[in-house]
């Protein structure tokens, strides 16, 4: 009987012991060479056959793994935060997730929020988004996002306009989108178009990260809009364009030149347009 009692005592001890070892073993494993380089995404035809009838759930898993990976990179100290080959893997994973389940909306949105704003991989993101346009026939967001990217990042109004038209036709789309699509046909008034677009995107953003990004961008554009208005006012009063933006302050049209949120400076072009020296898509990192 005594030995039975000892055995019972052994159970919690062993349980505790394996827990302790586990923690340090996992920590050691993190230091094994080759960790972090084991990123791979299987080609879709192979993957489709391998997952048997579990396309949907594997698609969810691949998406979640990508999401968790991206989340983890925010804790990194190194710059750039995500390496180019990691962006490749993120793109391939999102392609695989949407090959398994092309109606799954989250990978499309993730591609748009991460690959476009953070990595500047607009073409990759749009390739994915156009797949979303094709499959999610009831969803106005994929064509809107793809159209926005074409317009805003790639300056391709010819491709943006039909996508926005498509978006406006779908249920739930804001009536503003149709107006935007129409306006894109004539390329004037770029700043106002962008602000309308961004305000729409800001309403849609669900997470703080993209809200902050959009807010920053919106601030910059509103600054530019205010500066361009001031330049126009200056020209009306004095008949000529100011030489530099600082002249707006000395002439009393503007209280001060706003601070460019990306660390660059606002500059006046010879045609009266105001641009940013940081070209704010390309960030300092």
């Amino acid at each position, binding site marked *: 009987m005594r030995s039975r009692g000892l055995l019972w005592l052994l159970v919690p001890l062993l349980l505790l012991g394996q827990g302790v070892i586990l923690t340090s073993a996992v920590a050691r494993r993190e230091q094994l060479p080759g960790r972090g380089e084991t990123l791979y995404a299987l080609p879709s035809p192979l993957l*489709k056959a391998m997952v048997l009838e579990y396309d949907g759930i594997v698609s*969810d898993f691949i998406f979640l793994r990508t*999401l968790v990976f991206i989340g983890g990179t925010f804790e990194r100290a190194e710059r750039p935060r995500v390496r180019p080959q990691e962006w490749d893997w993120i793109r391939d994973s999102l392609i695989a997730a949407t090959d398994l389940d092309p109606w799954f909306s989250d990978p499309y*949105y993730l591609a748009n929020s991460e690959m476009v704003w953070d990595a500047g991989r607009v073409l990759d993101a749009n390739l994915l988004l156009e797949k979303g346009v094709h499959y999610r026939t009831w969803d106005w967001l994929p064509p809107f996002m793809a159209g926005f990217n074409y317009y805003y990042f790639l300056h391709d109004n010819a491709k943006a306009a039909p996508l926005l038209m498509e978006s406006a036709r779908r249920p739930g789309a804001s009536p503003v989108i149709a107006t935007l699509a129409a306006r894109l046909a004539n390329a004037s008034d770029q700043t106002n178009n962008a602000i309308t677009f961004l305000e729409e995107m800001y309403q849609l953003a669900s997470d703080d990260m993209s809200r902050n990004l959009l807010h920053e961008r919106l601030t910059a554009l509103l600054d530019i809009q205010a500066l361009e208005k001031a330049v126009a006012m200056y020209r009306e009063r004095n008949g000529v364009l100011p030489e530099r933006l600082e002249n707006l302050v000395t002439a009393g049209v503007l209280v001060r030149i706003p601070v460019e949120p990306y660390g660059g400076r606002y500059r006046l072009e010879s045609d009266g347009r105001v641009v940013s020296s940081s070209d704010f898509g390309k960030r300092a990192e």
Partner: protein
Amino acid sequence: MLTRLWPIAVITFKEGVRNRALYGIGAIAVFLLLGTQLVCSMIPRDVGKVAVDLALSSTSFAGLLIVLFIGINLMAKDLDRRTIYMVLARPISRGQYILGKFCGMGLIIGAAMTLLGGAATVSVLLTRVLYPNYFDKFTLSTLFLAILFQVLSLLLLTALSFLYSALSSTSFISLLLTVITYLIGQVTTDIKALVETADKVGIQVSAAMTFLVKAVYYLFPNLSLFDIKLQAAHGLPVPLTYVAMVSGYWFLFTALALVAAVLIFERREFP
């Protein structure tokens, strides 16, 4: 005919329920269904889709385990333990024995899938209460249809496992053949498509290989036909003609497997 099948079916059902494996499978299902809430909390938007994915994948996986670990044992046990002599000593033909066993297994699958399907539905509806905004296209009818299709697929697999049990001498061989049939049945469409468009993908496929793939395609059941999880997850329409066509396919293939099982079993010699 039916009066002779019924007692065997009932005995089979009781035997299956008495098998503790059923409890384990039930536990897996409950565990997976509870996990749904955890996973769904991590999904930014398409929560409804993920909830349905998890629910339907749990039911189909647990159902598969039932076929593999209860269904095959039911017949193998009779052969291993020689209890089959007691059954066959009664005025029951071997054909009636097989059909009775199949009906009994049908009852087990029906009962188990009703429980699993009920749990799946509760889990999806609970998620809908928690995240009502992400279920706009979801319909209960497609969810039920998906579960019904899973039942059909499991019954077809059971019929084939009986055929393998009639053919082979040990339950392990039957298990192996059933697993292989399941695997082939799930990928056959993809592999055939891959072989037929090999040039596009950039792989070389010999003529003999193409023939083999096509032979397998027509010999083995196409289980992916019964998989409408994605349609259920996104509330996409499943036309009635498709339902009728798949039901017809199911009936013919199941009948084929059972008839073949009966024919082989009748000729079989027992040690």
